[in-house]
């Protein structure tokens, strides 16, 4: 595996849209060729070389390419957008759209990410050591297919609207979450190890939510069914199973209505 190291040298005056920072764009390119790849600041086209010190070279394919991003990247958007393989390590706090529409490979962020990380994600893995912003693993505006596959792990807290329109994949939050978890979900799984506020599973059709802490306000559309023993992430415990959102439409399988499942730890 070849490694490309990007270190930010010139901060953008506004924000930098760097959707070319991905193993797919870097594969088969030398540091010089990578420096010539486009980035955008507002209506102005720049290059990655204008903003980053670049060393190393890309592997033959995306899968054989590893990218390390260093420095203050809090004004850099779209890192790892649409990547299909390989690896990205960000040593900083990147801005919006980290791993948006990602299909494969792995992104590790040793800091916080802003909103829209993992938007419309189809596969691969995102690991965030710090906190995540709003709309983590949600659908892009107007899309009814949110996160469809892959896994997002956040060690800190996450914002609101996580997993909107989710229909596959898994999101694990180590800390607390803000309002609206798995709204409109039709599948997938969300684990919240801390507390949740309200609107957990609103308009949920199918899928699973597991909450370890408190839920400040429970949706009226969720009904308590029974207690179950579960093993989640290596932790065995007793959970209360709620089903819902009973106000929403649901399909039937073998004559039985299928609901979304909400587990809350005792």
């Amino acid at each position, binding site marked *: 595996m070849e490694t490309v190291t990007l270190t930010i040298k010139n901060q953008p005056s506004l924000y930098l849209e760097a959707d070319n920072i991905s193993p797919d764009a870097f594969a088969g390119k030398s540091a010089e060729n990578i420096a010539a790849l486009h980035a955008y600041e507002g*209506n102005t086209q720049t290059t990655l070389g204008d903003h980053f010190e670049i060393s190393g070279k890309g592997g033959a394919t995306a899968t054989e390419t590893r990218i390390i991003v260093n420095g203050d990247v809090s004004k850099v958007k779209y890192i790892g957008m649409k990547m299909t393989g390989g690896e990205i390590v960000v040593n900083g706090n990147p801005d919006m759209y980290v791993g948006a529409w990602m299909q494969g490979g792995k992104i590790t962020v040793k800091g916080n990410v802003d909103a829209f990380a993992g938007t419309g994600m189809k596969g691969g893995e995102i690991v965030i050591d710090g906190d995540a912003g709003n709309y983590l693993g949600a659908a892009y505006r107007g899309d009814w297919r949110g996160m469809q596959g892959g896994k997002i792990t956040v060690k800190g807290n996450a914002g609101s609207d996580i997993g909107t329109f989710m229909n596959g994949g898994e999101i694990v939050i180590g800390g607390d979450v803000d309002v609206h978890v798995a709204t409109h979900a039709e599948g997938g799984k969300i684990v919240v190890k801390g507390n949740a506020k309200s609107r957990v599973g609103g308009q949920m059709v199918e899928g699973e939510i597991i909450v370890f802490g408190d839920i400040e306000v429970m949706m009226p559309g969720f009904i308590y069914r029974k207690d179950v023993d579960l093993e989640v992430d290596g932790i065995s415990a007793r959970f209360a199973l709620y089903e819902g959102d009973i106000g929403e439409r649901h399909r039937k399988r073998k004559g039985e209505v299928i609901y979304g499942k909400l587990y809350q730890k005792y």
Partner: protein
Amino acid sequence: MTKTVTDVVCPFCGTLCDDLEVVVSDDGKQLLEVYNACAIGAEKFLHSQAEDRLTRPRLQQEDGSWKDVTYDEAIEYTAQMLASSTKPLMYGWSSTNCEAQGVGSEIGEITGAVMDNTATVCHGTSLIAVQDIGIPHCTLGEVKNRADRVVFWGCNPAHAHPRHMSRYSIFPRGFFTGKGHKGRKVIVIDPRKTDTANVADVHLQIEQGRDYELLDALRVAFKGLPLPDVVAGIPKEQIYEAAEVLKSGRFVIIFFGMGVTQSLGKNHNIDEAIAVTRDLNEYTKAAIMPMRGHYNVTGSGAVWGWQFGFPFAVDLSRGFARYNPGETTSNDLLRRGEVDSVFVLGSDPGAHFPFSSVKKISELPSVCIDPHQTPTTAVCKLHVPVAFVGVEIGGCAYRMDNVPIETRKVVEAPEGMMTDEEFLEKVLVRIKEIKGE
């Protein structure tokens, strides 16, 4: 001698009343009286006659004083500012006609601007929800003639849309609603006892910020499924009762406003309200309508809808239209420092945006086009007063139910004053020259 102009359209709120009568002097230069309008609408017409009205552009000096400049100098300043920006924000567009919005769109496209209208702090969230799950809609004419169940959710038309209740929603006698308000059941959902709540048959005094839960509970109640004892501060018996009132109507209309669009959950509240409307259509006929504020905010959404495919928060910086509220909305752009100049037309962000955003506007190169002196004109570098649309110049406007109505010119603008459209046309020509196109 005076003359009376009839069937005048009121350019104030989204109700766009079209039955005003305006008395003007014989030479058509003075507007004397306004009939049939609400207090706010009448004031809008009469304010065009204000003694202290500005009639020429003015530029703010270093020391905060103002210097009068010519329209030509103002055009040059605006064109230079927009042409040299990396990412200009062009905000407002709600109190002007569709013709001006069209020219503005062209400027936005050439300069790679972010185009945003007042929906961004108003019904933009409704537009997000509509995109997510669609909307069962109707016109206000249908409401007047058919609706026998009227819901006002988080809105207070008694104050914000004063003639809405008498023209369309509660009191008028229509084709199938011959008994007027006696044949209608009015439900108001509001945490406060508003003047609209005072005329309601049912007032559900909801706990602040729990609209989503109550809407969800209504959907459960429609299906006859069990509910918790209390939802959003409302006992379940009352919720089942309200659900029954709605289901038993022949035509249900839900009007909603800022109380749901800008409180916790925002677009999700509307999303769920639309789902309630959709569910009601299983039992009866139901429609839902946002109470749009500015008289032509709906029109700017329509213009951008057909130009760019998105109704607000359109980012044209990379030459194609992108839209993602949360990133491309005015307050996010300003707060995060994503834009390097601000152009405002037909709106007053100075009065309605958070202080942190207004501060950013004051720090950036900025131009404000507005007939009035507002908190926005006070913080902008250049203020260009223009003729009042719907008073001194006509043009197309869209009512809150998406019906286009041609507004009318009733009086002459002060001599030498430009209109929004004329000013923008000249700026467009100049930007094309600067960019060498």
